[in-house]
Structures are given as C-alpha cells and as structure tokens.
C-alpha cells in the first residue's frame, strides 16, 4: 500500500506540474479510524496528501462528472471497478476520453470496516482506534487491545467476488498488475434470492431493506447516479412516497437498482456508504448476473461497447419476462 501511495503521488505531481490536468481525484487520510476521504489535489504540493489503503471504499468516478461539468481536466486514481465506471461515463457521454487521465491502481481489495469491528468484538464495547497495514495483515489497536487480522477475511463482499482488479483503462499504472480476480465465485453469491421459492423472496427482501433510513447515501455514492434531478427528488409529479412504509422504501430500492441495470460495476460504494449496513447489492448483483447471462455483457469493459439496455436486437433474449415468481 505504501508503494502504491508513493507512486500515485509521483504521477499526480507530474501531471499537475506539467499542466496535463487541473485536478487529481483520489483519496487522502481520513480523520477517523478505518475511513479515508475523497480528495481533490489541485497543486503538486497538495498531491502529497494523496494516499492508498485498504479503506478507499468510495468510487472516484463519482466526482469525475462534477469536475467534467465544471470544464476541468481530471486525473482519476482508479482501481479496476472505478476504471470501469470511468469507461461507463465515457460510453454514456458524461465525460470525454481526452479530458481524463486515469491513474490506474491494480487493486488488492478493500476492507469492510464492519467486519473489522466484528472481529475485535465491538459487541463487547471494543472500538478500533488505529489501524496499521502490514502486508496481508492489519494491526488493529484500541483501548486495551491489539490484534493482527488477515485482510482476506475482512474484504468487502464485492471485493471478494471481484472479477477485474486491474484497471480496464489506464494511462498510468501505480503498481504492477495483480491477480485479476478476488477469488470468490460471483455467480454463487451474486443472487442469494434465486435459491428461495418465490413466496420467501418477499420476506428476504423486506428483511434486507427494513432498516433503510432513506438518507440516499447509496444513490449519492454511486457513480452511475449523475442525473441533475433524481426520480426521488421530483416534486411534479412526485413519483414516490416519502414515508418509512415498506412500499415507499421498496419502490426506491427497486427503481434505483433497475436504473443501474447493465451499468453497475459492482464497486460496492453503495454498501460502504450505507450507515445502516444494508446489503443492497443483493439487488444490483442479481441484475448484473442476468445481464451477463442474457446478453454476455459486463459494464465498463470497453469504451466502444453499446450497453444492452441502450440497444435492441430482434434476437435479444426475453426469457426474463417469464421468470417473475411462478415458473
């Protein structure tokens, strides 16, 4: 991680110094344990604050739209998933290829802070105060304890099943390419609901989303959500109720997931942003699995590709129409 940090700084400084970009979007050290923050470096000096660690869990492509709309040229520090979102933004014509320099980071997977908390037993009142990275281990300290934990047991669910750890699009690389996948079988875990009978799915669905507080952090952390007015913010007409009723919560999550169909790179920013720790990927990863199986398409792999939801072919599969509930 240290070597990646140094290389990211070196590249960012050079790009800013040579005036190739106006800003480099990356991460800086966070102020609280297990949190890094998105950071915009605009001068070579500021580039010294850039960092890379196991806790860079947002998606830098999210900020790219904002920067592009302001007319700035951006360098983006991006691992596999974020680089695929940069590709997606180019495909969807939100960003011009020649206005972006991708600083690619072959990724070793990011850590889920909740898994760390579970291992140090937050349930017994132990809270993590500092984390030090040591190769494939994390040294976690708090009041009266110190534990060495294995990174691979702490990876976020989406990092465990990651299919593309190496950047798909990169103008510079901050490290040698790494193993392409996270090791988990995505098709086994992508759609946990598939194995349940239709009658149980609804109960599972409710269980997944009942604690939602509708802060919309999942939407706002997502690099696919760049609409100037989101459907939940429309007032005339108002598409959606505003209450905590299951109907309203359900509508929001279903619509959000479907808006991501064929576009989601499974970067996990939504789950990492959620203050309630909801597993909303149970929806999006099922949709992505369908897209893979029905259309042989994965989002963000090719700037020339036409996404399946944005095109029509007479021989397109329509099997999904018959798959709802009863077979």
């Amino acid at each position: 991680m240290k070597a990646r940090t140094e290389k990211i700084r070196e590249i960012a400084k050079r790009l800013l110094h040579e005036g190739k970009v106006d800003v480099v979007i990356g991460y800086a050290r966070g102020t609280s344990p297990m949190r890094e923050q998105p950071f915009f470096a605009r001068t070579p000096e500021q580039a010294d604050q850039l960092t890379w660690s196991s806790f860079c869990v947002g998606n830098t492509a999210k900020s790219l739209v904002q920067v592009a709309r302001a007319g700035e040229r951006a360098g983006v520090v991006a691992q596999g998933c974020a680089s695929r979102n940069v590709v997606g933004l180019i495909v969807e014509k939100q960003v011009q290829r020649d206005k972006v320099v991708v600083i690619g980071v072959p990724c070793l997977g990011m850590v889920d802070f909740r898994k760390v908390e579970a291992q140090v037993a937050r349930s017994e009142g132990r809270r993590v105060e500092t984390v030090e990275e040591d190769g494939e281990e994390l040294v976690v300290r708090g009041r009266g304890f110190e534990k060495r934990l294995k990174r691979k047991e702490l990876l976020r669910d989406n990092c465990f099943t990651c299919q593309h750890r190496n950047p798909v699009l990169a103008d510079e690389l901050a490290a040698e390419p790494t193993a392409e996948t996270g090791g988990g079988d995505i098709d086994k875990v992508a759609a946990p609901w598939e194995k349940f009978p239709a009658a149980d799915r609804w109960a599972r669905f409710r269980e997944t989303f009942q604690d939602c507080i509708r802060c919309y952090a999942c939407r706002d952390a997502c690099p696919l959500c760049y609409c100037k007015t989101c459907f939940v913010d429309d007032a005339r007409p108002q598409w959606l109720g505003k209450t905590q009723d299951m109907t309203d919560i359900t509508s929001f999550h279903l619509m959000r997931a479907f808006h991501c169909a064929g576009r989601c790179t499974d970067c996990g920013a939504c789950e990492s942003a959620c203050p309630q720790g909801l597993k909303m990927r149970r929806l999006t990863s099922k949709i992505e699995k369908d897209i893979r199986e029905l259309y042989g398409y994965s989002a963000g792999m090719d700037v020339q590709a036409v996404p399946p939801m944005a095109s029509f072919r007479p021989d397109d599969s329509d099997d999904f129409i018959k798959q709802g509930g009863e077979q």
Partner: protein
Amino acid sequence: MITAYKILGKNAFEGFFGSLAQGREVYAPAQKSGKIVWAPMHSAADVDWRLDNTDMSPKEFFFPQSECLMRFKNAEGEGGRVMVPVAPLATQRVLLNIRPCDAKAFRLLDRIFVQDDMTNDPYWRDKREKTILIGQGCVNPCPECFCTSVGCGPFHEDGLDILLTDLGDRLLVKPISGKGLAMVKDLPEAAPGDIDLAGKIMAASEAAVKTYPGFEPKKLAGRTVLDIYDLPLWSSLYETCLNCGTCTFVCPTCHCFDIQDEVRGEAGRRVRNWDSCMQKLFTEHASGHNPRGEKRDRVRQRFMHKFTYIPMRRDGELGCVGCGRCVRFCPTNIDVREVVRRMGEDVEAKSK
C-alpha cells in the same frame, strides 16, 4: 441540594428492572448484526452493559422518521370534511442506558419543538412527557466523539432523570430529576467509597474523550451571519460532499421535516417525515427557484445551522452535542471537527 447517591448491585438489577417495566416499555441499546441499535427489553437479562453508543440516535422515540399527524376524509353531511387526530402515545416508556450526549440533544430540541404557547408541538411534547431517561455515563468513549469540546461530557446530567455509573458488579445511581428520585427512593444509599470510585472513573473518561486540535466553536461567537457565510472554506469544502442525508439522519439534534398529505380517493392522512438540508428538493420553491440551488450552499447550511444560527437564537447553545455519529458515518469523511477548525481559521484570517 445534596444528592443522595444510591447503589444497585447488578445481581439485584432484576428487581429494579421489574419496577421500571411496571406499566412502562423499557428500551436499551442492543446488538443487531454488527450494529448497536435501540431495542425493547423484555427482562433484566436482555440489558447489555458493555455496548458503546447506538449507531442511530434515539431521536426516533420522540420524532419518528415517519409520523402520522392526522387522518381526514371527505364526508357529505358532516360539514364536508372530517379530520381525526392521532391518539397520543398509549404507554409510558423508559430509555435505559441513553448516553449523556443524546439526553442533552433532546434538551436542545425541547427549545425548538416547544418554544412557547405559539410553538408547542403536541407530538413531540406528548412523547417527551411519557418517557424517562436513565443515562449511563460513558466509561468507554467512542473514538469519534468530542462531547467535552461542545459543553457536554461523558457524565453530563442535563436532560437525564437518573445517571448510572457502571462500577463493574454494581451501579452507582444518581437521581437527577424529581421523577428519577421517585424511582430510586427504595434503593440503599451508596457508600462514600463507591462515590469516590465513580468520581475517578468519570475523571478518567473525561480525559479519554479526544479533543481535536483547533476545534474551537468559540471563535465563531459574536460574528455576523454574513461574516461566516462569506468565508473562503465554503468554496472548496463542498466538493467531496455527496449531499446524501446521512449526517442529518444520524444526528441527534437535526430536526427538519417535510409534511405530506397522502390521499387515496376520498380519504387520506397527513404525515411528517424527516427531511434533510442536504437534499436539493428541501429548499426548492414551487416556482422552480431554489435559494440553495448549489451543493456548496447546502453544505454551508448544515454547519452554519449548528454553529451559527442555533447559537444566535438559543443563547449561545451549540446545535451539536459531540456524539460523533456524523464523523463516523459520513461516506466521504467530512469531519465536523475539521470544518469548525477551518471556519475558525478563516474567521481569524479575516479579522487580521
């Protein structure tokens, strides 16, 4: 008045719990799949003394995220429309092991929801009057909290009926309000040694709460609104903010709401829902004009509300109790302590 401290052995807690639960619902922090949540307690054994503060603040108990205010229907022959009020809370409640920061937050919200005869929110007041707050002093402050920097503390008593100090196998009980005193009058008096021990624990706790270098809300006192409004930091701070509402929803003092009438056919209900100054729709006018149309304006609003507007209107009280939830849950780690530090820095630079 000298408070008569009481003592309660944890082995005798069952009896005390029984007296609490007599005609009341008891809630306390509990674990739920890695989170610390507020949950109903059915017996003394359900109470877990080891937990840190809950992920979500307990404001939901007084100000539910969605609350029906009334029902209505069109009715021929009954004056055209019938409006039915919602019944008041049916039960008395106890929030056990609430933290001092949250209790203080509700004192502040009392001054907002129940200001005077003209501003007297019956929904808030009803629930407040029917709820007893039994606090637990924080013996294990969270890494993100900063209560001692905002006029609060791990053993702050403001807003509590009773304050408990965990001495291991027993609890030191300090009645604070008349209600609290009535509930503990039958417990044995505490020995001077227990009171001393609790004093030591409290001092250690206060020392353990972190202070953030440069976090000095005092620097902002006495400045005009426009002084703060025009500070340079606002032009960059907003960049990484996602404008999600997480900070406002986890905050124990955020209290903005939106009222909606949900109508189906001839009948409907009026619902009050949490709202957030981070959302664009929050300030959008029917004309389409939006006085806080840019992300920058919305981010500035949150911090100015806490550290400028509330102090101006509430005798210098800050709109923040230092619970640290927004620091912990902000997806982009926008840290209120760092924001206030920068506000102070900008203010000083301006006055040079």
